[in-house]
């Protein structure tokens, strides 16, 4: 056991990915397949007076133009709060610029796109509010914060009184912009109806959610909808919900009676499946002369769409509640509605934006205290979550800081701003804490042992690039004692046992216990066959048997699987199992931690800022695959570099339309933006989360990156930038 878990195993799907053999949603071809595309609004508020599709319909190969006038009526009234029910061509109202208002179907992609451009729309324009900052005074309390499981506010002690009385304090407002996930694979769906049965091949982080949503909206049984998604070309949150394009593809397939494919254009990716909302965050931190926090106040305002599209409240203040020891903490979350689409989760939702503000403010507090910023964090370290009033199941933040500081050479830092140079360049070193909850949700899996010794494992989970195929194959191989190359892990099909959405860094912790349990169940069943057979099992119990390398070992005897199955008259043995929530959920606060160390080089005259060195040290429980695990760390840090220095979706205030909805002017990091990143896994395991002791690491490594970089920029230049992204004009001398 445990020969493979933890090892730097190559991805089992690597060969498919490097040969072009991995099939993503848009790549499922089938006879009769035709192409659809969206027509989108060019105003931000109002109603559609008329859609003139005559020219479009007359173009060669055009099969249908679906508008609110002729769209199928969906069962919106049955939809749950978590389902996106607008805009689905059910009415003529416009809530944001870029809203889908029609679908064009044609026999080729180019014809669909050209016909969409020929659709003419007349509107009655309404009053639009497009910029959050102009209506901050209209902020309101979220109605479904954390699915209604808790209040958007929290309060312990008296933060305001303690702040007023404190020796050292900082008070500042931080802002983060609208950002877009921009996975490299644009969302795509292929939908096909066979009578009442619907099959969709779609880019999703949650096949079960897509299955439920489509079944609900089209009024068919869940069992009549099948969702298939073996590969996802990145999601980062924007493929977590079932957004209108997937539903509209199924609607189009019904309309034309053929399988339909709809791939979003890159521009459409900016208006079709959510975004990280803009935030305006007011922070107040106070400490005593020794640097012990005495007051923390975090008031978060985040952008929302018009409420009729749903609700998404970015939980920016949750880390402030639990990260440090502090007796007086107040947190509020409020929403500000504008005529934009519905925001959604984006890699490390809440923490990415909130910890930027918190950890920037901590740096400002360290400056006010004339204290080393690492020391300030260590003085406020705690083994107890003051909000949940529970101990942390495992918290190695101090070790992260120690190991990270050692690797980075932190002790050589001159604390004075503008004091460190390399040639002409200003050098800045900054740190910040990372934290992210260790989530786990119920999951299930099934295992089949075949006569040839191979093992097939099925679970309706997803691999969004995080390595699910590989890591779960390792778990199976170790648990059943079979070589890795005899294991085939199958996922991304709603016909398999259900598993949760791949979001919130849940997949490994949720699915691996189900896989382990299913392996145990199938082994027990297999042993049952051996024991039930008087010839092989006489006098033994299950405790006497073992399974290794495709054979059952009975004392004094090796029974190849084929032989066991043949004697029992079966071709294979199958069993399934499900698993629940984290073992330690009731008694412990479950979180991962990390320490982010950034070095920036700033051109003193031109203001150009580049990250030149990076060290991240993380306490993420047990790492099941050191290779794919490191990939997640460097990936998260790279995403954070983009957040810190490059990314912002720019809105035209007049029209509410995005101006840089592409990959040339919406800047994400390219190769030269990313230095060699040193990553450290602080040793540990957390069996309060799951039996293997693993915690998810998809989001943790991006938390705190923007703050570490902003703090480094302050150290380099003496300029405190509180508004992301940090651009050269903000530090230009």
């Amino acid at each position: 056991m445990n020969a493979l878990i933890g090892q730097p195993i190559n991805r089992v799907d690597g060969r498919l990915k490097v040969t072009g053999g991995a099939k993503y949603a848009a790549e499922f071809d089938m006879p009769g397949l035709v192409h659809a595309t969206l027509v989108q609004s060019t105003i931000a508020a109002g109603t559609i007076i008329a859609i003139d599709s005559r020219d479009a319909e007359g173009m060669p190969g055009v099969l249908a133009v679906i508008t609110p006038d002729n769209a199928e009526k969906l069962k919106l009234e049955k939809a749950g709060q978590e389902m996106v029910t607008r805009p689905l061509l059910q009415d003529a109202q416009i809530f944001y610029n870029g809203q889908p208002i029609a679908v064009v179907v044609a026999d080729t992609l180019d014809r669909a796109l050209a016909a969409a451009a020929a659709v003419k729309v007349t509107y009655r324009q309404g009053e639009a509010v497009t910029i959050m900052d102009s209506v901050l005074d209209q902020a309101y309390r979220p109605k479904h914060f954390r699915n209604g499981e808790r209040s958007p506010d929290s309060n312990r002690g008296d933060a305001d009184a303690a702040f007023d009385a404190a020796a050292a304090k900082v008070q500042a407002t931080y802002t983060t912009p609208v950002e877009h996930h921009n996975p490299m694979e644009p969302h795509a769906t292929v939908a096909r109806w066979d009578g009442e049965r619907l099959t969709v091949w779609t880019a999703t982080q949650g096949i079960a959610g897509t299955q439920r949503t489509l079944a609900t909206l089209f009024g068919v049984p869940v069992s009549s909808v099948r969702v298939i998604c073996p590969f996802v070309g990145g999601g980062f949150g924007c493929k977590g919900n079932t957004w209108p394009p997937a539903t509209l593809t199924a609607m189009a397939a019904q309309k034309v009676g053929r399988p339909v494919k709809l791939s979003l254009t890159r521009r459409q990716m900016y208006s079709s499946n959510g975004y990280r909302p803009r935030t305006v965050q007011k922070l107040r931190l106070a400490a005593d002369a020794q640097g012990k926090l005495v007051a923390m106040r975090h008031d978060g305002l985040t952008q929302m769409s018009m409420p009729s599209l749903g609700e998404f409240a970015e939980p920016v203040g949750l880390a402030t509640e639990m990260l440090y020891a502090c007796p007086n903490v107040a947190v509020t979350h409020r929403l500000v509605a504008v005529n934009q689409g519905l925001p959604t989760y984006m890699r490390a939702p809440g923490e990415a934006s909130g910890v930027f503000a918190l950890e920037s403010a901590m740096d400002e507090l360290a400056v006010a205290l004339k204290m080393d910023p690492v020391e300030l964090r260590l003085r406020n370290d705690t083994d107890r979550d003051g909000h949940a009033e529970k101990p942390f199941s495992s918290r190695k933040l101090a070790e992260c800081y120690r190991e990270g500081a050692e690797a980075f050479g932190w002790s050589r830092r001159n604390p004075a701003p503008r004091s460190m140079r390399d040639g002409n360049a200003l050098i800045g070193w900054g740190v910040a804490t990372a934290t992210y909850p260790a989530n786990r949700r119920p999951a299930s899996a099934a295992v089949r042992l075949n006569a040839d010794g191979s093992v097939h494992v099925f679970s309706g989970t997803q691999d969004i690039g995080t390595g699910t195929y590989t890591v779960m194959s390792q778990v199976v191989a170790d648990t059943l004692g079979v070589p890795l190359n005899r294991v085939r892990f199958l996922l991304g099909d709603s016909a398999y046992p259900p598993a949760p959405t791949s979001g919130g860094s849940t997949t490994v912790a949720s699915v691996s216990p189900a896989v382990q349990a299913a392996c145990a169940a199938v082994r027990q069943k297999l042993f049952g066959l051996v024991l039930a057979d008087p010839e092989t099992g006489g006098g033994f119990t299950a405790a006497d048997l073992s399974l290794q390398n495709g054979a059952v070992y009975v004392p004094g005897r090796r029974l190849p699987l084929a032989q066991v199955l043949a004697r029992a008259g079966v071709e294979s043995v199958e069993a399934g199992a499900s698993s629940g929530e984290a073992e330690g959920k009731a008694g412990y606060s479950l979180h991962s931690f990390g320490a982010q160390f950034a070095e920036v080089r700033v051109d003193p005259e031109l203001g150009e800022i580049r990250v030149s060195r990076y060290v991240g040290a993380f306490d993420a429980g047990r790492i099941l695959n050191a290779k794919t695990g490191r990939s997640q760390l460097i990936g998260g840090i790279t995403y954070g570099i983009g957040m810190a220095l490059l990314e912002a979706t720019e809105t035209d205030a007049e029209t509410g339309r995005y101006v840089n909805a592409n990959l040339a002017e919406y800047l994400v990091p390219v190769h030269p933006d990313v230095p060699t990143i040193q990553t450290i896994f602080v040793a540990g395991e957390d069996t309060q989360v799951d039996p293997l002791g693993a915690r998810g690491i998809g989001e943790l490594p991006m938390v705190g990156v923007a703050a570490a970089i902003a703090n480094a920029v302050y150290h380099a230049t003496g300029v405190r930038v509180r508004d992301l992204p940090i651009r050269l004009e903000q530090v230009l001398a």
Partner: protein
Amino acid sequence: MRTPSLTRRGLLGRSAATAGGLAVVPLVARAAPEIPATTAPPNPVRTPEMVDVVLQVNGKRLPLAIEPRVSLLDALREQAGLTGTKKGCDRGSCGACTVHVDGRRVNACLTLAIRCQNKAVTTIEGLAAGDTLHPMQAAFVAHDAFQCGYCTPGQIMSAVALIEEGHAHSDGDIREWMAGNICRCGAYNHIVDAVRDVAGQTDTGRG
């Protein structure tokens, strides 16, 4: 390869006990339906501007009937079934569609298919020699130079060209000459490791 499927018999008919205190789920699974030929394929409506062209892709003749506006990328993906070449932005800004035309790396999304007649097109599907991966493909696997895999074919096609161009002198060079290939999963560090590794093996391009 045929995808194994769960069977009702295996899971319901013969399902066994509990394990480790966890209930065995009642699994309702049906056999995986193969993609049936339900509808007659609609040949695109033939219009006067459509033309018959023959491309040379991965050493094979590829006859196509296309409109002149069809990009090489869409010709490969939508008509030739060569979906290894990816569409990320369709505007030349991400590099996911990188292929070689007459030995040079280009963005297939900004290339008209009709202009590629009499030119040799190489895609990711044409890189391996049978079952033997190209060294760059093998290095990408060994260094885990990807996560989701969607930008990967473009990164590999770019990396192979980069070495042939002689631009792998240093990590800084590799980064700059790979700048046209965006990886949103952030595998850049590992991609540089893979390219450096192959550049060292082939002993060209590094001075």
